[in-house]
Every structure is written in structure tokens, then in C-alpha cells.
């Protein structure tokens, strides 16, 4: 269909750490399976709950991938009219802790801080970059959505979504290489 589809690496979610180890910053990938949407306000709550539970991830997030996104309501027969990545660096305060607790990947846009990079190396986790502003396009890759927690936050709720061939680039790989350093 377009350049991102040709030669892209197909990855099944939840991601296996062995599969992540073979990825390199800049690789194009297509994700299929469950992703969890969560952003600013939801991260504040999740961190509080994680601390209260002595580092055990709630809501079945262990081994899963978090997509930094706040979707629009359903439209055109799809779960969301539009959904795309928000700026990942706003979640840098939480990402290292979440990786150590068992989150294997995040999806967002923009650079991460050195602590996130270090956590990717330490835990064998990956940061994926999706195309910011391509949210109608990306919404076509979402098959279903259910609210898992924090429903009162509206668009910022924790949602479990099923994606099919969701296009991303490897942003930070397990060796700490960063796609934004390649330019």
C-alpha cells in the first residue's frame, strides 16, 4: 500500500522479548494484537497504584505494550474516529518504572530522555514511534476497544485496543539506539 508496508517486520502483540532483541532503531514494523492506550492523567494514577501494589502491574499490563494516545469517540463504524501517538516525553517520568515492572514496549512520538533509553537497555524493552498526525489512517488499524480503567478521565482512560497491521518505526531498540539520532 505504501512504503511503510513494503519490507516491514510483522510483530505479534503481546511482544516476546526475543522478538524485540532482533529489532533495530529505524526498522519499520506492523503490530497486530492488543495495545493499551494511556497518557498523562492515567499515568499519574497508574504510578500510584503500582506503588500501592509494591510494583505489581494492575489491569493485566504485565508483558503488554502501552500506546500513548487519547482517541476521539467512535465514528465511521470504527472504535475511534481518530487515534494517534501523543508526545512520549511527557510520560518519561513513568516509563522506566513501568518497564522494570513488566511493560515491554511503548508507542508514541518524539524523543525520550536518557533514563528511558537506559531502561530499554536494562529490561530489553523497545520504544516504538508512530506517525503523529496520521490519526484517521491509524484508526483504520484499530479493530476493537474496551475501557479497562479510569473511565472518568474520558479520552485519557486506560483502554485495551486490538490493532491490525499498525505501522510503527523502532524508536529506541534494546541496545539503546535511537531513531532520532539517525538523522
Amino acid at each position, binding site marked *: 500500500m505504501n512504503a511503510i508496508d513494503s519490507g516491514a517486520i510483522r510483530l505479534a502483540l503481546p511482544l516476546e522479548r526475543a522478538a524485540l532483541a532482533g529489532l533495530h532503531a529505524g526498522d519499520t514494523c506492523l503490530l497486530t494484537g492488543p495495545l493499551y492506550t494511556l497518557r498523562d492523567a492515567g499515568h499519574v494514577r497508574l504510578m500510584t497504584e503500582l506503588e500501592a501494589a509494591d510494583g505489581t502491574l494492575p489491569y493485566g499490563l504485565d508483558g503488554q505494550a502501552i500506546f500513548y494516545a487519547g482517541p*476521539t*469517540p467512535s*465514528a465511521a463504524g470504527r472504535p475511534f474516529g481518530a487515534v494517534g501517538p501523543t508526545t512520549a516525553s511527557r510520560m518519561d517520568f513513568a516509563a522506566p518504572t513501568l518497564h522494570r515492572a513488566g511493560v515491554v514496549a511503548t508507542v508514541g512520538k518524539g*524523543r525520550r530522555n536518557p533514563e528511558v533509553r537506559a531502561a530499554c537497555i536494562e529490561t530489553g524493552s523497545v520504544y516504538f514511534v508512530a506517525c503523529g498526525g496520521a490519526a*484517521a*489512517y491509524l484508526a*483504520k488499524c484499530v479493530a476493537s476497544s474496551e475501557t479497562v480503567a479510569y473511565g472518568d478521565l*474520558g479520552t485519557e482512560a486506560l483502554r485495551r485496543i486490538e490493532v491490525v497491521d499498525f505501522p510503527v*518505526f523502532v524508536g529506541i531498540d534494546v541496545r539503546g539506539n535511537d531513531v*532520532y539520532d539517525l538523522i
Partner: protein
Amino acid sequence: METIISKSQVARAVYTAIPKLACDLPADIKAGLIAALEREDNPRGRAVLEQLVENARIAHEDHVPICQDTGTVWVSLEVGSGVLVPADVFADVDDAVARAYNEARLRKSVVHDAILDRVNSGDNTPAFCDIHPVDKLGVARLHVMLKGGGSDNASRVAMLVPGAGMQGIVDELVRCVCEKGANACPPLVVGVGIGSTFDKVAGLAKRALMRPVDEPAADPRVRAVEEELLEAVNATGVGPGGLGGRTTALAVRVATAPCHIAALPLAINMGCSAMRRMTIPLAGYAEGHRAIEGDAR
């Protein structure tokens, strides 16, 4: 005869503009993305541009939002001499915003208060409104912009020293693009305000975003500044999506103003690749009128 702008006229224009802006990428931006794709040779940059062009098509055909961040609503009423505006001219705007966001199924992205009450207002209100007088007889028009949070966060105000001059402006802009550009969803439209005072310069930068990317500045000196800044921004190689390539920005739009002898105020307002804005003539402009012509101060 004096022209009076009514609050219902303003609210109606806002209500009509919102769903169109959310789902239809302005023609100048769409053409800019297509042209950028044609000259892009970085594979990641190309992939991003292909997604963005396809995205605009899907949004238009399926009447879905271009971006999930359907923004805060900025409304600026520009009025010329002899036009009367009641003090409550924006009184019905929030009602129009709430109805438009609910009916068009757009995202509600506003909290009641930045620090005291970060609970979502639930209907994307309030809108952010201002009145802007211009030195033209009998005219009135309304600027409406849906402004994304990621690009606004990548914006800045810098109070430069006069001695920094043009090079100081270039350096600050390039630094801003390299540090924050990827967060603002490039290809960017960069609004640059130069002059006035600390509080006003950001408004200059924002209004500068209203001029279409295919409409050169009326003043050739402003045009030269815009060309120099655009060249510097694109020389960074930040590229589409911040992932590398030729086109980091589709355009830089500059508005300048007088200032204090001690000052060189600079504001950079990042606009994303979904630069959703529209100018609606209310009085004194012929149909089909477009936007600001270098009188943004």
C-alpha cells in the same frame, strides 16, 4: 452606515467552522504535503508523508478527524475602524464549541484549570478568544484555529537582546526545532512573532499562522526573513515526523512589530502538519477572501 458584529453571528461562524476544520485539511496544507512527498528521498520521511497524505484523504471521505487531538479552539475577531462590537460578542461561543464537539464526535481536550482543577471540562470549553483591531475601514473577519497540544508545547518565547539580530533569531528557531520539532508533528508551519512586548509577541506568532503557506508576505522584507528562516529550519534535516528528510517545515510565517530599544522579543508558535485554521469574512470582505496580508500586528 455602521456595521455591528453580533454574538450570534460569531457563534454561528465558530459552530460551522469546527467540524470542517477537524475533518478537512486546508487546501494549502494538503498541497504542501503532496509537494513535500514529491521531493522527499529519505525513506522514513517518505513513509510519514505518504501516511499524512493518505490520512487527509481518509479524514475527508469518512468525515473523521484528521488528528485525534482536535485541539483547543482559538477565536480571534479582527475588526476595522467603524465596526461596532458588543462587549459580550463571545458570549455564545462556548455553547457553539460544546455543540460542535459533541455532534462531530471530536475529542474533549480541555481541563477546568491548569493547576487548581485538572478535571476535563467535558465539552472542550472554554474557547480562547480575543479581539484584534486593524486599521481598515468597515471590515470584520473571524479567525478560527483548532490548536493541538503537542505543537503548542513545542513553542516558546525568547526575549533576545537587540545585538543578537537576525542571527540570534535564526539560532533560537533552529534550536527550538532541533529540541522540540519532532514533538510538534512535522512538516511544521512555524509562526514567528518578532517585536512588541513579552505578552504580545506570542499573539503575533499565532496570528502569523493564519496566512496560507502558499501566500507570500506582502512586505518583501518580511518575505526575505521568512525565506531565510525556512531554509535554516529545513537544513536541520529533522524532516517529516522528525524521522529525517528534506521538509521539516512547509512554511515559516513571520509577523513583526515595533519594540523597546532594549528588546528583541521573539515568539515561536509551532503549527503541526494538521494546521487547522480558517478565516471567515463577517463584514466588508468579498466572498472568497482568504486571510491576513502582512498586517498581523
